[in-house]
C-alpha cells in the first residue's frame, strides 16, 4: 500500500520540477535557444599586432567548443567588438551586448585602460555582463569590487616584482624606469620602481614618462645617457618601443652591449624587431602569461592554430593568443555549466559559475579568488633573437 503513494509523490515532484525548469546544467532536450559571447580588443589600430592573434585564438576556441557539442547542442555565436584601444569605441560596442541578454560574456577587453573606463557600464547592466580578459593586468581591474571582472593573466603587482627581481638578478646598477602615461604602464612602472627601492637600495633609479604615441624620445634618451643607466625598464603597450630603441641606438646605446632593455607584454612582440630596424634585438620582455609553446597542455591548440591560420601564423600571433584561447575556454565552460531555463541562460548564473567553478584551459586549471584573479599564474620572459621573441624562462607567481 505504501509503494503506490510513493510513486504518486515522485510523479508529482517530477511534474513540479519540470514546471520550474531545470536547475542543473541543461540537457539536449533542454538546450538554450541562442548563446552568444563577444570578443573585444584592439583588433585594428595601433595595437592590432597584439589584438589580431588574440581574436584568431578566440575564434578557434569557439570553433573547437562548438565542434565538441557547444552548449548542450547549441552552437555558440561569436560577436566581435573591435574597440581599437579606445574606451569610447569600447563603450559603444559593449552597449549592444549589454542590451542583448543572449550575449552572456565578453572575452576581453584587452587593455587595462579600456577595462577601467568601461567596467562600470558592464557592472551596472541588468543583469551585469561578465568578462574574462586575457591581458588586462592593472591592479584596479579586479580590485574595485566589481563582480563582472575576471582575468586569466597575472596582475601588475605580480609582474612588476618579477620584472624588478629579474633586473636585480642580472646585477643592474642604474635603472631607467619609464612608463607610457597609461593606466597600465604608469602603475606597473611605479610598482617596479618601488620594488627596486625596497629590495635593492643600492640600485639607483631614474623615473621618466613618455606620452602615448610619442615618437621623439631624444630628450629622454639624453637623460638616460647622462644618468649612465645600465638597464632600461619600459612599461609600454607596444607602439612607442620601436622609435624609442632606435633613438637609444642612435645615441650610442646598443641593447645587449652597453645597455640592457626590459619591456613588458606589449613589447613581447616580434614585429618590433622589424619596425625598429633591428635596434630591439637582445631586448627582454616579460609577459603576464606564459609562452604557450612552453606549456605541454597547449600543444594541441598550437597545432590546430597552425592548421587553421597557416604554418607561420604562430610567429605573428602576438603575445596573447594562448591566454585569449584560455579566457574563451573559461567563459564557455562557465556558460555550459549554467542552468538552462526555458531555453535561456542567465548572465547571473554565468557569473555565479565563474566565481565557483574550476576551469580546464590550455594553460592549466583556472580557479578564481573572490576578486576574479587567478591564484597561481606564470609570467613569461622572452628575448628578441633573430626575427622572434624567444622564451627565456617562466616564473610562477
Amino acid at each position, binding site marked *: 500500500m505504501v509503494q503506490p503513494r510513493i510513486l504518486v509523490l515522485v510523479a508529482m515532484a517530477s511534474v513540479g520540477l519540470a514546471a520550474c525548469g531545470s536547475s542543473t546544467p541543461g540537457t539536449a532536450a533542454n538546450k538554450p535557444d541562442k548563446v552568444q559571447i563577444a570578443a573585444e580588443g584592439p583588433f585594428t589600430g*595601433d595595437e592590432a599586432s597584439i589584438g589580431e592573434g588574440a581574436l584568431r585564438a578566440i575564434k578557434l576556441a569557439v570553433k573547437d567548443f562548438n565542434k565538441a557539442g557547444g552548449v548542450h547542442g547549441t552552437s555558440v555565436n561569436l560577436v566581435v567588438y573591435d574597440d581599437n584601444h579606445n574606451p569610447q569605441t569600447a563603450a559603444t560596442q559593449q552597449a549592444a551586448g549589454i542590451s542583448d541578454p543572449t550575449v552572456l560574456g565578453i572575452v576581453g577587453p584587452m587593455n587595462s585602460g579600456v577595462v577601467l573606463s568601461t567596467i562600470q557600464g558592464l557592472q551596472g547592466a541588468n543583469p551585469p555582463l561578465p568578462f574574462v580578459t586575457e591581458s588586462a593586468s592593472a591592479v584596479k581591474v579586479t580590485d574595485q569590487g566589481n563582480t563582472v571582472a575576471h582575468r586569466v593573466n597575472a596582475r601588475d603587482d605580480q609582474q612588476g616584482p618579477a620584472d624588478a627581481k629579474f633586473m636585480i638578478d642580472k646585477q643592474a646598477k642604474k635603472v631607467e624606469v619609464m612608463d607610457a602615461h597609461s593606466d597600465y604602464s604608469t602603475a606597473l612602472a611605479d610598482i617596479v620602481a618601488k620594488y627596486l627601492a625596497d629590495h635593492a637600495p643600492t640600485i639607483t633609479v631614474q623615473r621618466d614618462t613618455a606620452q602615448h*604615441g610619442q615618437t621623439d624620445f631624444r*630628450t629622454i634618451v639624453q*637623460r638616460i645617457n647622462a644618468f649612465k643607466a645600465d638597464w632600461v625598464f619600459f612599461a609600454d603597450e607596444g607602439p612607442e618601443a*620601436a622609435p624609442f630603441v632606435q*633613438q637609444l641606438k642612435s645615441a*650610442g646605446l646598443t641593447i645587449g652591449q652597453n645597455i640592457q632593455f626590459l619591456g613588458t607584454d606589449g613589447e613581447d612582440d616580434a614585429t618590433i624587431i622589424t619596425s625598429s630596424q*633591428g635596434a630591439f634585438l637582445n631586448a627582454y620582455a616579460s609577459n603576464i602569461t606564459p609562452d604557450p609553446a612552453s606549456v605541454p597542455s597547449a600543444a594541441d591548440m598550437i597545432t590546430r592554430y597552425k592548421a587553421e591560420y597557416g604554418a607561420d601564423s604562430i610567429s605573428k600571433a602576438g603575445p596573447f593568443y594562448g591566454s585569449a584561447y584560455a579566457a574563451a575556454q573559461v567563459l564557455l565552460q562557465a556558460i555550459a555549466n549554467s542552468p538552462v531555463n526555458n531555453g535561456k541562460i542567465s548572465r547571473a548564473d554565468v557569473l555565479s559559475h565563474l566565481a565557483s567553478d574550476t576551469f580546464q584551459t590550455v594553460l592549466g586549471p583556472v580557479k578564481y579568488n573572490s576578486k576574479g584573479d587567478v591564484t597561481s599564474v606564470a609570467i613569461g620572459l622572452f628575448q628578441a633573437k633573430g626575427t622572434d621573441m624567444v622564451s627565456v624562462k617562466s616564473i610562477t607567481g
Partner: protein
Amino acid sequence: MDYFLQNFPQQLVNGLETGSLYALIALGYTLVYGILEMLNFAHGDVYMVGGFLAAGVAGLFVHNGVTAIPAGLVVALMAIASMGGAGLLGVAIERVAYRPLRNSNRLAPLITAIGVSLFLESIVEVQVSPAPVLVPSNALVPQTVIRVGSVATPFMGLTLLVVSVALMFALDVFVFRTQFGTAMRATAQDREAATFMGIDVDRVIVVTFLAGSALAGMGGLLFGLTFATVNFFMGFLIGIKAFAAAVIGGIGNVRGAMVGGLFLGVLESMVGGFISTSFQDTFAFLALIVVLLIRPQGLFGQPLTDRA
C-alpha cells in the same frame, strides 16, 4: 649645476631639432591665417599624409633593407611625392571644403577644417594602415652620429634642422622679396582692395595652400626619415603644438611662426631634460597661456600684412 651645464648643449640641440619641425608646420597655419583669417586644423593631417606618401615611395624601392635604385634617388622621389602630394592635397581641401564657405560666418570653415582633419585620419587608418608604418631610414640615409664636443646628433637630426631652417628662409624670401609675395601680403591686408588692384585672389589663396601644405609634406618626410615610422595619428598632437607655436609667435606672422616653433621645441626639451618628462606638454601649453596673457598678439605681434 654641473648636471645642467653638461647636458644643456645637447638638450638645446634636441630642442632646436624638434622645434624646427614644429616651425615648418606652424608656417602652414600662419600663412593660411594671414590670408584667410581661418584656422586650418586639417594642416597637421596634411603633414601626416606627406609622411605616408614618403613611406609609400620608400616601400616601392626598398625591400628587406636593400634599395632597388640609388638611395639618394629614392629620397628625392620621396621628397617629390610628399611635397607634391601634400601640396596638391592642400589645394584640393581649399577648393572643395573651404572655398564654398569663404563668405560664411567664421565658425563654418573652422568646423569644416576639423571635419577634414578627422576624415583624413580615418581614411588613412582604414585604407592604408591602422598600425605604424616603417620608413626604412637605415637603407636611405647615413646612420652616422655627428659629434661636436659633448653634443652628438644623428645625421638625420641635423638634416631636419638644416632643411627646415633653409625652407623657412626660402619662404621668408618668397613672401617678402618677390612680386607674388607682395600680392600675398596685399591679399592678407585687404582682400577686396587687392582684387581692385588686379590681384587674382583665388590664385593667391591656392598658392598659399600649396606652399604651406608642401612644407608640411616635407615635414612628414623629414619626420619619417628621422624616426623611421609614420602613423595615421601623427598629425594630431604635432598639429596642435604647431598651432600653439604659430600663436606664440603671433599668428599670421611668418617669422613669428619660425621663432614660435623653435621656442616651443627648446622649451619642451628643457622641461623634459631638467624638470620632468611628465610635464613637457603641460609646460608647452602653459607657455602659450603666459605669452597670450602678456602679449595677446604673440611674440612678434604684427600680422603678415604690416611687414610690407
